[in-house]
Structure formats: structure tokens, C-alpha cells
């Protein structure tokens, strides 16, 4: 690198664009700030506030339990009564003035429930890129019209906390035609009427991902060209024209992720295999056939024809020994995710084959693993990050070592990359209670190697952990964020246990069951 002074006459004139100055520097690093730090930065100085306040509003969620903020004219007493009735805490909700002033900065909006507030905000929401709502109302239609050049993700689905809270979305395709930036759609209860095939096709041409859940496609998309941009296609419990088998698949040559999750319809495997055999599956890396009625041998054939397969889900299916053999012989060094819950044909022997051969496996969910196999397992997948298994046959383990379940715990201990562990035990009720009791004297201490664990779900173990076991848990698993299961000595001491856990790990969330956790997540 040489330097010397330069004569100005030899310069080439380059016009400068509008420049950022030092006042805009906070804006540049704001994307790396967590929320508490961002809030602190707002109070540093006027220029930092001006630069950073819009960042606070970039992503905004309005939940069903947020009533309209008190208008200025409403008497204080009424506001207090409203607060008492709804449990609404004013400090947790922005003022109407603040909302209206900053709505123009909102790029990601999640809006759940029938809140009248949206009507007041709609005129200001002109920079939306992401919109997730539960109802297709007049306000939502207006938002689609106002954000034709910016909106790239639209999610319209029913409220998970209110079963049946869906309104059939009719004639939405006409409104989606004008959204030039649209790339991702997820629709619940959509209809493609028997005259909308062309519009549906025109919309599909733009998309990178399309998810239709509980929807009805009375007409196939009409298109002379294939959907070259579509990378992800999810069809769940959706009704399609009888002749459209496999659904839409043949129109998407660049598909990377395909999900056909249906409890009612049956995928025409023969046609699917014809398409895959013609090379249509070369780009496919993720496949989800959960709930399908495809037989084991056909699943094996499908996997054989997918050279790029890395993520495969087939829970509640007939996945069994043949498909396992293909995974172990042809995909053992590429498969990263395998989710096979509630597959009666996938037993302990099949699970052992997967765990010993699939070297790149990061996520594995299986119905059962045999305790004796588990105790002698030679892991082929030491990089596992998520493991969801139930252990069967614990009582048949020879108890020659102490702690009594050293074999199982020491095997789990080598999986030092685990972030999510869901552990259960399958036992005949006549045999007595569960043996994997998650106690220190039974071998729990061996799991001290799981320093990265974030989610521990022992709901299916029903452990009875004493105070010293819980103390060990919070002092060892410092990354733990979620604990699912009844880990308390007894029900009466549940509150005390939770208090203790919260005092040691303030960010820890505890749930009795996975269902409780799912509801809580849906409510956020």
C-alpha cells in the first residue's frame, strides 16, 4: 500500500449521495442491541432518541388482552374500573398518542383479536413488510391496499386460543394480486373458488413460500408457466381437487421444502413417485409427510429418490423398518432432522439403527428407545442438539452399578451439544412407578455435561425431585430457559419450588405440561 499527495486536477468527479453523520451512528448499531439496552439508549441524548425511537417500533404485537388505551377525555374512575376488570396495566401498553405517532415505523405487525385499536392505526401503517392477523377484516383489506409495494409476508390464521375462531377467507386472491413485494403467505381456512384458478396462479408466481391450512382449493392454479420462485409449500388438512395429486407439486420445480400433513386426504404415492423419479425431487431438502397414510415401503422409495434430503418428518405415519434401512444406508451422512413421533412401526431396534449410523443428526424424535440398547449405545450422532425419546424396559436393566441408572444417564451425558431434551419412560402400570426419577443418587449428576441445555421436558417421566436435586439443576444448567414437568417434591410444595427456581434462574419458565407451554406460547 503506497501513499502520496495527489493533484486535485486528476480527480474523477463522483457525486456524493446523502451522507450519514455521527448522529446516525446509533441507527447503524441498533440492530445488534437487545431490548433493555435499546430502551436505555433512548435516554442518552436527544439525537440518540430521534435516531433510535423508530427501532423500538419496527416489530409490534397487539394482543387480545390489550383493551383500547384510555382516551384523554375518559374520566379517571372509568379507566380504573376498566383496569380492575381486565387486569390491564397501563404501563404495559403504549399510549394512543405514542402509537399514532410511531405507527409509521411499524414494519412487522402481529395483531390478535377483535381490538378496535387497529382502525385508529390503519391510516398510519404504510411501511408494513410483515402482517400477521387472525381475521380478514375491512381494516386488513385496507392495509393490503396501502402496502402494495412493501408487504412481503402475510399470515392470516385463526386464534389458537379460541378453537373454531376462523372465518373462511373468500376472494382474497384478487386483493393479493396487487402486492408486488409479496413472497410469503400462510393462510388458514382459505378458499380458492372454482373461478379463481388464474388469480391464484398469478399470486403463486410471486411467492417463495405458500402455506394453506384447513383450506379448500376447488380449482387448481391456472398457469402456463411453473412456479419457479416457490421454495416452500405446506398443505395441511386441506382439500384439493381429486385429480391434483400430488397437490401442486409438479408446478414447483425448485421446491426445497414440501409438507403434506393431512389426517383425511391420502397422497397419491404412485404419482408422487413418478414425479420424483423424473428428477423433480432433486432440490428437495425438507419433507414432512406427518399424518399421511403412506406405507413403509413407499416411504422408503420416496427417501431413495431424494438425494438432497436433510430434514424428514413423518410423525403419526407408517414409517418403519424399510424406510429406516434406506436412511441408514443412503442418507446416513446427510440427514440432520428426523421426527417420527407416534409411528408404531418405528420401534427400539429402528431407533438404535438411526442413533448409531446418522452422523449429522441434530434433531431426533422417536417413540421409544430400549433401555438396554441405550445403555450400550455407540452414538453415531454426537452433534445432537434436540432429542425427544421415551425409554422402555428400564426395569429389565441389570442393576449392577451405582448410581442405579448410570448406564442411561452416562449415555445422555456425552451429548454435550444438547439444547433441548425431552425425556420420557414407558412402563407397564403393573410394574410400578417410573424408575428414571431424576435424582442425584440415581445418576442425575452425570448430566452436568449438558451445559448448553435450554429446554428440559420431563413431563413423561413424572420425576419426584427433592430440594437438593433442584438445587443441582439450577446451579448446573445455567442456560436453562424452559422446564416442563412436575418436578416438585409434592403438589403442596409446588409454589415454594417455583419460587426457589425463579430466584436462582430469573428467566426460567416452568410448566406442568407441554400443552400448558403451547398455550402460553400461542398467547404471546
Amino acid at each position: 500500500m503506497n501513499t502520496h499527495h495527489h493533484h486535485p486536477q486528476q480527480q474523477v468527479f463522483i457525486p456524493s449521495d446523502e451522507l450519514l453523520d455521527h448522529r446516525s451512528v446509533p441507527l447503524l448499531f441498533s440492530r445488534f442491541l437487545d431490548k433493555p439496552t435499546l430502551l436505555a439508549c433512548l435516554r442518552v441524548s436527544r439525537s440518540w432518541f430521534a435516531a433510535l425511537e423508530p427501532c423500538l417500533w419496527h416489530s409490534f404485537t397487539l394482543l387480545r388482552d390489550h383493551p383500547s388505551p384510555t382516551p384523554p377525555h375518559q374520566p379517571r374512575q372509568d379507566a380504573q374500573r376498566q383496569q380492575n376488570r381486565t387486569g390491564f396495566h397501563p404501563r404495559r401498553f403504549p399510549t394512543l398518542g405514542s402509537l399514532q405517532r410511531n405507527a409509521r415505523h411499524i414494519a412487522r405487525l402481529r395483531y390478535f383479536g377483535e381490538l378496535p385499536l387497529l382502525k385508529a392505526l390503519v391510516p398510519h401503517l404504510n411501511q408494513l413488510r410483515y402482517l400477521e392477523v387472525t381475521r380478514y377484516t375491512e381494516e386488513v383489506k385496507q392495509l393490503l391496499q396501502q402496502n402494495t409495494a412493501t408487504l412481503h409476508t402475510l399470515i392470516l390464521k385463526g386464534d389458537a386460543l379460541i378453537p373454531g375462531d376462523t372465518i373462511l377467507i373468500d376472494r382474497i386472491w384478487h386483493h393479493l394480486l396487487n402486492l408486488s413485494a409479496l413472497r410469503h403467505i400462510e393462510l388458514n381456512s382459505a378458499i380458492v373458488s372454482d373461478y379463481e384458478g388464474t388469480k391464484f396462479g398469478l399470486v403463486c408466481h410471486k411467492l417463495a413460500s405458500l402455506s394453506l391450512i384447513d383450506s379448500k382449493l376447488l380449482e387448481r392454479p391456472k398457469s402456463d408457466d411453473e412456479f419457479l420462485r416457490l421454495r416452500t409449500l405446506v398443505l395441511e388438512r386441506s382439500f384439493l381437487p381429486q385429480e391434483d395429486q400430488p397437490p401442486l407439486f409438479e408446478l414447483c420445480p425448485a421446491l426445497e421444502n414440501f409438507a403434506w400433513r393431512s389426517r383425511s386426504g391420502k397422497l397419491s404415492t404412485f404419482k408422487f413417485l413418478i414425479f420424483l423419479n423424473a428428477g423433480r425431487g432433486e432440490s428437495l431438502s425438507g419433507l414432512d409427510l406427518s399424518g399421511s397414510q403412506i406405507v413403509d415401503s413407499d416411504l422408503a422409495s420416496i427417501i431413495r429418490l431424494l438425494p438432497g434430503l436433510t430434514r424428514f418428518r413423518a410423525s403419526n405415519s407408517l414409517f418403519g423398518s424399510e424406510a429406516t434401512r434406506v436412511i441408514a444406508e443412503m442418507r446416513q451422512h446427510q440427514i440432520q432432522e428426523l421426527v417420527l413421533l407416534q409411528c408404531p412401526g418405528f420401534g427400539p431396534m429402528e431407533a438404535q439403527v438411526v442413533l448409531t449410523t446418522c452422523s449429522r443428526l441434530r434433531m431426533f424424535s422417536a417413540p421409544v428407545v430400549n433401555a438396554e440398547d441405550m445403555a450400550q449405545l455407540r452414538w453415531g450422532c454426537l452433534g445432537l442438539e434436540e432429542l425427544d425419546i421415551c425409554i422402555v424396559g428400564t426395569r429389565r436393566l441389570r442393576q449392577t452399578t451405582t448410581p442405579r441408572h448410570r448406564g442411561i444417564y452416562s449415555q445422555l451425558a456425552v451429548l454435550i451439544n444438547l439444547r433441548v431434551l425431552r425425556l420420557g419412560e414407558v412402563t407397564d402400570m403393573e410394574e410400578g412407578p417410573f424408575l428414571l426419577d431424576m435424582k442425584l443418587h440415581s445418576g442425575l449428576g452425570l448430566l452436568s455435561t449438558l451445559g448448553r441445555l435450554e429446554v428440559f421436558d420431563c413431563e413423561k417421566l413424572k420425576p419426584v425431585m427433592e430440594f437438593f436435586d433442584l438445587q443441582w439443576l439450577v446451579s448446573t444448567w445455567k442456560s436453562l430457559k424452559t422446564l416442563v414437568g412436575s418436578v416438585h417434591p409434592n403438589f403442596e410444595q409446588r409454589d415454594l419450588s417455583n419460587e426457589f427456581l425463579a430466584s436462582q434462574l430469573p428467566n426460567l419458565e416452568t410448566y406442568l405440561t407441554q400443552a400448558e407451554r403451547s398455550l402460553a406460547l400461542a398467547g404471546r
Partner: protein
Amino acid sequence: MTVILVSSDNQDFKVDKEVAERSILIKNMLEDVGESDSPIPLPNVTAAVLTKVIEYCEHHRNDPVQVPEETDDPRKRSNDIEEWDMKFMQVDHEIILAANYLDIKPLLDVGCKTVANIIKGKTPEEIRKAFNIVNDFTPEEEAQIKKENEWAEDR
């Protein structure tokens, strides 16, 4: 092949073209101008800052070109800075501004992550001290901002 970059204070920097093109701005300029020996003026970058930028680009000359991310997630990680970058980076907003102007995204990211790591977890007063910033809010204004944005603590 080499190119000549000219800083705002008229210092020349002779740099390999491959290194200079780590800056998308310079890359685009070179494509527009075509084969030319004309120096490229950078009126918004001083010699001191340009020296640092070139040092960074030379160290990273063989890194793969970063692809723009489509994700909208505004909360990015800041704990993945390389050791060399950590030692290289000084808290200097001029480097961040230069990286933004020259469109060198990896350098911009490193600079921004470094700053973010410095201020993470600090109070407003501690942040002011770290960057020598004068507080131009009244106590009432600062309290009002805190109160108005308390809702965001729960999100």
C-alpha cells in the same frame, strides 16, 4: 492490478483491485468507469480512517462475499466477532460511517457489534460516559421517555 484511492485530505492509497473491491461502492464505481487509471476520490473518508479500512480489507481479502439477508429479524447476534477483528476494532464512529459509505458490510457489522457489546447492559449515564456524550434532556423529559416506553420492557 492496482487502483488509487484518494482520501478527503488528498492522500493517495495504492491498493490491489481485489482488496479495494471489498467495498461495494468502489466495486460499482470501477465497473461503471471500466478500464481506467483514474484515481477514485473518497471525499468522506479521511486518510487515518482509510488506512484502517484498507488494513481490514487486506486481512479479509479472501473471505467469501456476504449475501444480503432477507430476514426481517432486527435483533442480530453480537457475540460472533473474530479474534483478529476484535483486536483490530477500536471504538471509532468514523470507521462505522466509512464502512457504511463504502458499503463494506462485514466491516460495518464488526464495528456495530463492537459498539453494541460495549453498551450492552449499561445505564444511560454509563453509555454517555463511554462515548463522551452530553445529556441534553431535562430530568423530566428523561423520566417521561422512560414512562412512555415501559410497555416495551414486556415485549
